[in-house]
């Protein structure tokens, strides 16, 4: 079985500002990986390269094939993205937004067919957004909106789900909701999940594998207890913390010293 994502010696720069300097990473199908790192460490850039929005130097393979070899439509059926924030300039309902995910499945001169409506319904049921279907996206709360965005990504029916800080603007309850949903999608449907994350403790709690980016390189890659250590966090974030491992699961928990 080929890996879902293979990255070898990837470099990327925005003009003169180098962001990724030789990143290599392999993610197997069905894995759930959290990408951590300070602002500007390249988390978002990495996800954008994986979704084909940016192109770096180096080999990037999705599902065994170089990412360049895919047409946009094929790529959209392979990997779906949940953005950090979404632009909305015109009145679209939540259902219309979710159905846009189907553009890569049906012909572009067609309206959505039964299969597309079905996929949208299932995606909205899984994210508990069915009751929001006919509401305008711009009328929804941050948490509702983000669930609709996840529904859209699910309706794409891609095996790889890329999320860029999916809980960044959410309150505690909705943060937990999004993390629970990611775990469920990974466990029940076997989706490969790669998420850029800010909250170290939620990452440690939910993600079996963490990748810590620092200065354009992978600083540490492994289970939470190996990655989230006091020394690693000091080195990458430049912050003094205390890490404890409470409870029976002994997942690391990071305390910031004020």
């Amino acid at each position, binding site marked *: 079985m080929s890996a879902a994502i293979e990255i070898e010696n990837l470099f990327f720069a925005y003009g003169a500002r180098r962001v990724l300097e030789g990143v290599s990473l392999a993610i197997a199908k069905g894995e759930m990986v959290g990408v951590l790192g300070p602002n500007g460490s390249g988390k978002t850039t990495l996800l*954008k390269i994986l*979704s*084909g*929005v940016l192109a770096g130097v180096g080999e990037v393979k999705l599902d065994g094939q170089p990412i360049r070899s895919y047409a*946009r*439509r*094929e*790529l*959209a*059926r392979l990997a*779906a*993205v949940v*953005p950090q924030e*979404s*632009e*909305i*300039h*015109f*009145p*679209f*309902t939540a*259902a*219309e*937004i979710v*159905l*846009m*995910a189907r*553009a*890569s499945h049906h012909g*572009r*001169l067609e*309206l*959505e067919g039964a299969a597309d*409506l079905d996929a*949208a*319904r299932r995606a*909205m049921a899984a994210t508990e957004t*069915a009751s929001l*279907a*006919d509401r*305008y*996206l*711009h*009328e929804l709360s941050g948490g509702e909106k983000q669930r609709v965005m996840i529904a859209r990504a699910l309706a*794409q029916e891609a095996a790889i789900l890329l999320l860029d800080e999916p809980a960044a603007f959410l309150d505690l309850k909705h943060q937990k909701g999004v993390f629970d949903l990611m775990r469920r999608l990974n466990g029940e449907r076997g989706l490969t999940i790669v998420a850029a994350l800010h909250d170290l403790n939620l990452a440690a709690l939910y993600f079996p594998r963490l990748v810590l980016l620092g200065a354009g390189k992978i600083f540490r890659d492994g289970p939470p207890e190996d990655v989230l250590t006091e020394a690693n966090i000091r080195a990458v974030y430049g912050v003094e913390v205390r890490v404890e491992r409470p409870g029976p699961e002994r997942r690391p928990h990071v305390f910031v010293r004020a």
Partner: protein
Amino acid sequence: MKVLDHRKMLAVNVALLVLLLLTVLACSLLGPVGIDLKRALGDLFSPDAEILFRARLPRVLLGAAIGGGMAACGVVLQAMLRNPLACPQMLGVSGGASLGGILGMIFFPNWLLPVAGGLLGEISWVPLAAFLGALSSMALVYRFSLFHGRLHAYHLLLTGVIFNSFVAALIMFLNSIVDFYQAQGLLFWLMGSLSTRAYTTVAFIFAYVAAGFLWLWSQGLRLNLITLGGEAALQLGVEVASVERQVFVASSLMIGAMVSVSGMIGFVGLMIPHVMRLIVGSDHRLLLPASFLAGAIFLCWADTLARVLLAPAELPVGIVTAFFGGPFFLFLLYREGRKMPV
């Protein structure tokens, strides 16, 4: 879950199409001189037929094509630039067309072009000069809107606006160095008018508007995705650069052709897309044809009012579109405003 289906597509488009046909008929019959439809159709050499087929019908058809074309261009430009204030005037093409037309009027005012080798008479060459101006400005704006090798929405918006202001300065300059009578003529042409005598002109506009509209309509689904932003559209499988290029070229050609013939008729391209979005929704597969038909209906009526309000004098049609369209739009915005994303 309410979504766009074939029934809604058909119902809206057929209803608007019927309204448009009735509008064309009614507007052809209305005017300062009353005409009798029976007599006009019974005797093709009667004065009634002469007025109907020579004066009114070509003008009404032209109004329908230009109203529809402006509205359709407004829809796609607002989507592509992700800016609700975008309108056909913004693209720079309109400025280029105006400048071309004015240069033609000043330097070769008496040139006439033979149609079909002179068999169908001669037409003024001003529209052709304007169209040449439109094409060259289109090339120029395109070139300056490239950013990292691809068309960039903000660059396009700014280039268009700045190009138009620059051209406006040139036009004002030209206007102030020609004599009084010529200046009057230029001003009148710039205000825009649908008066025409030639079916060749109408056919020219129909060809551009119909082809351009179908081209734009074929991008309807992808335009929906593009309103979400370039990155989101890419991630959903849209070749964004290709769509933007196609939309720019198709709408520029349409706008260039329309402005060359009728001058810049404002407001239709800005207002109709918003009105129709509030009524039929934002899905471009329906929004585009619905706006086209509504724009056609609206401009036919506006031009009819322009002809009859102060008959036998004529008002510039742009005055009518803004005078009646503005308040209606504000009313609709007040009632349906919650549908607008802030």
